[in-house]
């Protein structure tokens, strides 16, 4: 390679030595300390701004809601609230669980005043950040649909159902119990969403009513029966609707949402409710809680009360097909009444042992 010539390098005479390397490491190590120091002063500062904020908010009426339910869905509802009460809402939308994780990181400095979650599990996870709801709120909802500690309340109910491929499975052959799903007949034909909160809540409910032994055995049998795992309820419904699988465990309203999107007559998938008392007929909730910093905030309380008002509950019935949780409101036509579902005999607060369920799901290889 003789004709080639190496490009000469510049030679700067400044020192860049081991000492610099050490200093660099020191800076990297100091960073968290600096952050922590800044955090201390920051917390004072933000405590001050918080208090000014809350005085401000009574004047400007800006209620901060962290919403695990999507803007498409509840945005119009929040606008109704503003119209009715004059209180404007500053809403942050996100995944329920990710918002819960975010609030845990924000800690007591969280700007959130109300947390509106898709499911009971995420509300349970942030219980330590929530204040006790006033009697005027908790008296509206039956006790199985709110926290034992009264830190959160259900707003709407969602039932677990089985979706089936109506082209291949006659309605009278659809399993009435989750225990039938491990039958050889359904090998490779059952879809579940093991990473999804509503499936995990169902497994927790099964553990509470049937015991860990039975649940573990059922899950193992399910895995041995080639159960198919999906990421979300919606994808399970798509899979059933396109005939990839015959059966899928989902929440009831997914079917109604998809039917509204593509037209009911175009739905190949149909849904069926499981037998009363079966773990597969669990009724979970979407719910709300007020953060400690806003415990005395009348607007936050008014908002949660409003979510449980007859007109809002009617709105959910018509728009999301969920179950109303206050007395005197009828559920959507074609849905069996909430009290006839008679899900497994547990309180939603009992679903808090999610970690135990996760370990079990990991053990059987579903997570």
């Amino acid at each position, binding site marked *: 390679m003789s004709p080639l010539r190496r*490009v*000469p390098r510049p030679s700067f005479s400044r020192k860049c030595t081991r000492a*610099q390397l050490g200093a660099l490491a020191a800076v990297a190590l100091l960073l968290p300390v600096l952050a922590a120091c800044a955090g201390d002063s920051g917390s004072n500062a933000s405590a001050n701004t918080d208090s000014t904020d809350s005085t401000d908010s009574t004047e400007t009426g800006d209620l901060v809601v962290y919403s695990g339910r999507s803007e498409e869905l509840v945005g119009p509802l929040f606008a109704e609230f503003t119209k009715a009460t004059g209180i404007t809402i*500053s809403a942050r939308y996100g*995944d329920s669980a990710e918002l819960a994780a*975010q609030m845990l990181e*924000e800690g007591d400095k969280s700007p959130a005043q109300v947390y509106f979650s898709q499911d009971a599990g995420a509300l349970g996870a942030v219980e330590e950040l929530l204040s006790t709801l006033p009697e005027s709120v908790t008296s509206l909802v039956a006790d199985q649909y709110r926290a034992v500690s009264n830190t959160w309340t259900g707003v709407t109910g969602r039932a677990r159902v089985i979706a089936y491929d109506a082209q291949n499975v006659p309605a009278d052959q659809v399993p009435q119990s989750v225990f039938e799903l491990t039958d050889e007949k359904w090998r490779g034909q059952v879809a579940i969403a093991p990473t999804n909160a509503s499936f995990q809540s169902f497994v927790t409910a099964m553990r509470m009513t049937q015991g860990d032994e039975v649940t573990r055995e059922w899950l193992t049998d399910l895995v041995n029966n080639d159960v198919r*795992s999906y990421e979300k309820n919606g994808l399970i419904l798509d899979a059933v609707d396109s005939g990839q699988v015959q059966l899928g465990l989902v929440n009831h309203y997914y079917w109604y949402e998809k039917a509204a999107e593509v037209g009911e007559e175009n739905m190949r998938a149909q849904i069926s409710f499981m037998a009363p008392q079966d773990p597969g007929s669990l009724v979970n909730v979407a719910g709300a809680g007020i953060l400690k910093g806003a415990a005395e905030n009348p607007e936050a309380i008014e908002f949660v009360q409003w979510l449980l008002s007859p007109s809002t509950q009617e709105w959910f019935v018509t728009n999301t097909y969920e179950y109303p949780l206050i007395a005197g409101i009828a559920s959507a036509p074609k849905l069996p009444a909430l009290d006839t579902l008679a899900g497994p005999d547990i309180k939603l607060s009992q679903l808090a042992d999610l970690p135990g369920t996760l370990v079990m799901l990991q053990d059987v*290889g579903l997570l």
Partner: protein
Amino acid sequence: MQNKSNAKAPLLLFWGAALCACIAAIPLVYLAIRIGGAGVSEIVSILTRMRTWETVGISVGLAVVVVTASVLISYPTALLLTRTQLPLRRFWFTTAALPLAIPSYVAAYAWVALIPGMNGFWAAALVLTAVSYPYVLLPLLVSLRSADIGLEQVARSLGEKSTAAFFATTFRQSIPAAAAGSLLVALYVLSDFGAVALLRVDAFTRVIYTSYRASFDRSNAAVLAGMLVILAVILISLERKARGRSLRFRADKGVALITVPKPLTPTYSVLSSLWFIAIAVISLGIPIISLLVRLSQGSRRPLDWAELMNAVVNTAWISALGAVIAVLLALPIAALAANFRRKSTSTIESISYSGLALPGIVIGLSLVYLSMNSVPFLYQSFVLLAVAYAVLFLPKSLGASRSSLEAVPPALGQVAQTLGYSPLRAWLSTSGRISLQGIAAGGLLVMLTAMKELPATLMLRPTGFDTLATELWSRTELAAFGAAAPYALALIVLAAIPSFALSRGFLTSEKETMVSA
């Protein structure tokens, strides 16, 4: 043989780069705090769980397959684009960078809609390759174009066949660019959640997401994420090894001989066109057609044009701002790494890369925690969101900037200095100017990625600030795919604009070179 200057870097540059690297390392600080919160027995139980290692194995396997496929696609593509008068060359240039505009979850969804039941490792490998191979292709284009082909001619004049001459000279000089791109692809695959989740691959990120989403066990999740950082460090050192073997040579003094595209015979024209069409169909055609089908199926929610335009405008400026900050942060590190190889400089470079393997939720939460505890007045502001993008994607701009700076002979800067320029001015008027294109390519990558970013955007955006990605998310959450389609298409169209601009810049400067040659 010595490949890098052993000279000491200027103090200012060194410390500037160190500071920038610390900013990029913010997520690691958070992880350290959270791992510190986990008990030893907890850590041991995670590390001894068979399942943990199975999922790590799957993720690593996926990264290996996707990187290999990306390199195999990128080399022929880059050579055809830089060296031949391929039919529709300008058009192919524009589409070359476009797959980056398609979020992995959109691509995966499109494939599943097309082939119901498609899932598993190889499906994920296909989708991830289709959306990430341009990470290799783009730096390679810049590198091959600026390579001095005088060397190849020397080799041929010494009796080597043209292929052998290419591999002995230009190919070896292109290794740093290909390696930098491969690193980005590997880290992208390790951190991806959207595609692996939809295609039901038991990748490591799923385990991490489950820890956060279902158990809210932040320590547990942090330990798992820490394992990803270790994997990233291993990959970074592999990349450095690949880079170390490459040499930078010039044939002679004077102006380098730049490639002049040659005409292709008709047969080769057809074959290479088929190659480009096949790639375009897989990476762009299928996702776009699938979205159009969804769009035509309609939705019960009518499209609100004002809302869409608002999201387009927001996405454009916030990602551009993030890209500018990322480039500014990456430049000192790139300049240092390109010209001074010492242990301390490579430490700085590694630190700035290591966060890229982390899934979005980890980065999002780390920025929530640290901004809340250090700059609470900036929490959920535009500034913080743009800085977040810069922190997240700085490595993407770093790879492109560094490899193009490396191609500039440092002697130029020295000459400028002997003529009385200050070091900074000398650098700006030589290296900075010559490698502007590579630096711009890096900025483009950051902008494209920032447009698609979701988890950190959801957590850090100012309340009520909607981008295309958040609007898309909000609609897919509801399974309203018909309503989501316009947003997905708008995202792709928006991202096409900067990539088109880049391609045009590339072609124009090439013409000038041809004229001056």
